[in-house]
């Protein structure tokens, strides 16, 4: 079947892109990591020289010991290999999810393994951004539909202006403002989402998480739904001018069915793929928003890793980001092809 073959092609394509991008990033990272590792080795060797047995050694032996230890570490970190070799190794490790160990960062359960750290924080980002994404896309689509139906009305104009304004707002700044208003002034929500409540019983836990999640959630929804409404408005207005909508009306199909059946169904391929794209895309771009609210997800981990110069963690998170992006692209194609009987051609080529 053409669809399956097309999809396989897309996946292979995405995998090639993934490998290439990871290779490029590995090359960059290795350059940076080299200098950093040298400093680390110096420090580690110096630490070992504080050993009392070291003090008792003769000057010559001391020199020999230092050289020996340095060599040991250089080998351990693979610095004795050629640059290309190291980049290749790094690429391979990253692609096989062997991100290595963090220096100081720990996962919530105390692991230093980067993949474990990421695995433990990823669900939290998904929880926040997926919930928010579902809410704002539903609100956005509904508002967009209404405003498309009354194109030119004051509601429509209002939505368009709101969308234009929210396009130019930094989400994290809105977050700061909301903290000022709702946490500082009104005291309705906590200013910081961290730490998340401990699990005792389900109801209390869910309530606690919701309470901590409320402010970031409101912020994300507030900033995004205008743009969504605007996009779906334009999409729907385009479809409303299609002949088949007129035909449906002439057939006596109730207006509600025309809008939610014909128009929305015809817009569905675009809307759903766009949703997938933004949902998965938002996970990576959430660094600042999570930082502002102290939401302990992937974004905040990213931030922490930047602050602490945790190269392995940054590398791991970057991989997850790129992977999510490419995954979104393939998934969008798959869904588009599934929803639109006409074309089995990718949407990501058109987004």
């Amino acid at each position, binding site marked *: 079947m053409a669809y399956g*073959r*097309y999809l*396989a*092609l897309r996946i292979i394509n995405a995998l090639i892109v993934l490998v290439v991008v990871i290779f490029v990033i590995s090359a960059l990272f290795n350059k940076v990591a080299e200098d950093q590792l040298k400093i680390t080795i110096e420090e580690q060797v110096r630490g070992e020289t504080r050993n009392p047995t070291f003090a008792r050694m003769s000057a010559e032996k001391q020199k020999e010991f230092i050289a020996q230890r340095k060599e040991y570490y250089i080998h351990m970190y693979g610095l004795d290999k050629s640059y290309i070799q190291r980049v290749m190794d790094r690429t391979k490790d990253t692609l096989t999810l062997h991100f290595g160990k963090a220096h100081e960062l720990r996962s919530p359960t105390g692991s230093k393994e980067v993949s474990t750290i990421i695995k433990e924080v990823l669900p939290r980002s998904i929880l926040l951004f997926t919930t928010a994404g579902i809410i704002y896309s539903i609100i956005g689509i509904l508002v967009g539909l209404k405003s498309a139906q009354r194109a030119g009305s004051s509601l429509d104009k209002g939505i368009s202006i709101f969308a234009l304004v929210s396009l130019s707002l930094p989400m994290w700044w809105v977050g700061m403002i909301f903290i000022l208003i709702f946490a500082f002034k009104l005291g309705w929500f906590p200013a910081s989402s961290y730490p998340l409540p401990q699990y005792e019983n389900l109801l209390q836990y869910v309530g606690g998480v919701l309470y901590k999640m409320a402010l970031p959630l409101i912020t994300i929804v507030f900033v995004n739904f205008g743009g969504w409404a605007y996009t779906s408005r334009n999409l729907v207005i385009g479809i409303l001018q299609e002949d088949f909508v007129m035909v449906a009306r002439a057939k006596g199909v109730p207006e509600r069915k025309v809008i939610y059946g014909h128009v929305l169904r015809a817009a569905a391929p675009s809307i759903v793929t766009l949703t997938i794209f933004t949902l998965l895309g938002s996970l990576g771009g959430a660094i600042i928003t999570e930082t502002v609210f102290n939401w302990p997800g992937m974004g905040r981990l990213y931030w922490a890793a930047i602050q602490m110069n945790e190269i392995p963690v940054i590398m791991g998170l970057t991989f997850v980001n790129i992977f999510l992006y490419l995954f979104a692209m393939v998934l969008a194609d798959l869904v588009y092809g599934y929803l639109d009987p006409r074309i089995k051609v990718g949407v990501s080529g058109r987004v």
Partner: protein
Amino acid sequence: MDPILQVKGLKKYFPIKLSFFDSIRGREVQYVKAVDGVDFDINETETLALVGESGCGKTTVGKLITRLIDPTEGVITLKGIDVATLKGDDLKAYRKEVQMVYQDPFASINPRFRIYDVLEEPLLIHGIGESISEREELIFRALEEVKITPPEDYIHRYPHMLSGGQRQRVSFARAMILEPSFIVADEPVSMLDVSIRAEILELMKELQQKRGLTYLYITHDISTSRFFAQNIAVMYLGKIVEMGDVREVIDNPLHPYTKALLSAVPEPIPERRDMIKEIPIKGEVPNAANIPSGCRFHPRCVIAKDACRHEEPELVDRGNRHYVACPYV
């Protein structure tokens, strides 16, 4: 009279793009045989109407003659010049000789060009007219020739400020400004209202008489070809099935496909109201990538014989320069 244009064994195959997987599997490249062996001549200051349904390859023939695409096989000679091998400056010179007018006057003129720019472009390309005023004069003259008058009212306009008929006149002016001797008119009136259609056809006739033009008139509308052309060629799936004097072919069609086409032409005879005309044809046009064996018309032919499946009929002169590609009529 000597033929100004001769077409012999003209073929154009378009390869079907293979997917990545297919090419890996070593699947053979398939072709859409848009034009599959076409021969015809056109005499100077005459018009040949090339008639057929959409997808029959008639537009491809037009593009081959204007050298917008290169033929897969066959020879085209215009005034004795072999068109297929033209290159560089020779090709550019050829472009002055042969021009094309398109079906959709909305699409064939750049919407961001003013009428002046539309007409100036060919002059600039061929370096005609040294000064602005010289070019302007040529532009004015071209517009007057197609009866866009007064020209100064129109040169500043954008195409969307003109009616469909006026736009088609501008297309002719653009083609005529290079003073070609041969024009390929690809359905020049099929997008226009009936009343304007006549206007453009009259214009084309007038230009022909004044300039001694030769036309290849591509159309699906046989009735206008009777009015406009001297000769007619009926195409079906990349081949000519019948060819000859336009009156002879229309009044005395031989090929079953021509008969079907003619019977399908609506005629304004109100007394025949509600009479269900028999259209002697079956099914629909097959895909050009999948041309039937033997006579390519046989699956739709009402008089098809067994032999039609295997033997491809030749275009044979049945006297009076009336050529037919069917041995059973």
